């Protein structure tokens, strides 16, 4: 029986990424209606709630002295603002970049809570985001430059003989952005969380052994804590990398190289 219990505890490290239905409604009305609240939906709502409450809590513009929360939020805003200004030269797209940064950051950070679900480990969320950005950037470029937008695929000073080859290469590299942006975020989060799960399973096994082994396990446990710190850093870095690349894609669409 004990072995059976252990078997129940040690699951596949990839099981945490599974989207499951928590609450479902199936009804044969309106064709066939299926509304279900999945863990992905629940955590998306949680992320929205946390972002809104964070901004509500940090909002104390009626007071002369800002709270710690508003100082923190204002410095995050200032860094994103300066990044957008550096890349694009104007603040026109700041609301989008700011929202994107907070969405990915809070989604990544809530995922670091043990037993929780990380919405950015869903390929639909991360690839969906990068697809949206690529399509939007293409629409933006076409609406600004009209047909001249396609000169983006021909770098200036290209010999005529090389144009067909270069257009192909540029087109592939342009379309690859739709995947590379999302897969970067997705792969980093999945790899980190899988590693944490595997290490935590090992540590659990070692801690539940004899007393000496449990005491000795404190050494790898400190390493594990360091890896958790690294994972927190990755949450920030990935959110930052995602928005900085989004900025540079928007810049490419506006300025065409």
């Amino acid at each position: 029986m004990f072995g059976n219990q252990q078997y129940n505890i040690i699951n596949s490290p990839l099981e945490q990424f599974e989207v499951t239905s928590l609450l479902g409604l199936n009804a044969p009305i309106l064709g066939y209606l299926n509304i279900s609240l999945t863990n992905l939906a629940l955590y998306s709502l949680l992320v929205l709630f946390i972002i809104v409450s964070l901004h509500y809590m940090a909002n104390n513009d009626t007071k002369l002295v800002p709270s710690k929360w508003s100082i923190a939020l204002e410095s995050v805003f200032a860094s994103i603002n300066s990044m957008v200004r550096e890349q694009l030269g104007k603040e026109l797209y700041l609301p989008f970049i700011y929202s994107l940064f907070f969405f990915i950051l809070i989604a990544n950070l809530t995922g670091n809570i043990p037993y929780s679900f990380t919405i950015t480990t869903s390929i639909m969320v991360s690839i969906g985001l990068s697809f949206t950005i690529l399509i939007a950037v293409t629409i933006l470029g076409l609406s600004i430059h009209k047909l001249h937008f396609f000169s983006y695929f021909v770098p200036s000073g290209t010999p005529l003989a090389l144009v067909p080859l270069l257009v192909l290469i540029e087109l592939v590299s342009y379309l690859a952005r739709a995947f590379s942006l999302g897969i970067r975020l997705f792969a980093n989060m999945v790899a980190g969380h899988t590693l944490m799960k595997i290490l935590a399973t090992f540590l659990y096994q070692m801690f539940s052994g004899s007393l000496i082994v449990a005491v000795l396990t404190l050494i790898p446990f400190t390493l594990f804590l360091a890896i958790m710190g690294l994972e927190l850093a990755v949450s920030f870095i990935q959110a930052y990398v995602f928005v900085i690349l989004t900025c540079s894609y928007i810049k490419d669409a506006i300025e065409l190289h």
Partner: protein
Amino acid sequence: MSFLGLRKWPTPVAKPLWPFIAAGTITYFLVAKAQDMGVKSEAYAKDPRNPYAAQIAKESHH
């Protein structure tokens, strides 16, 4: 109208961000299409976890 009583900022949102809104709509349809294809695919059409399994089975009878 201000949001939750927060201060209003005169920031244009809909006008500069219309390509992103349009792209979001396109992605929404693409994801819906992908989901539909996945739900009806050979591998998952008869899966017990598929909430549309009963409907697909019914439709294939016709």
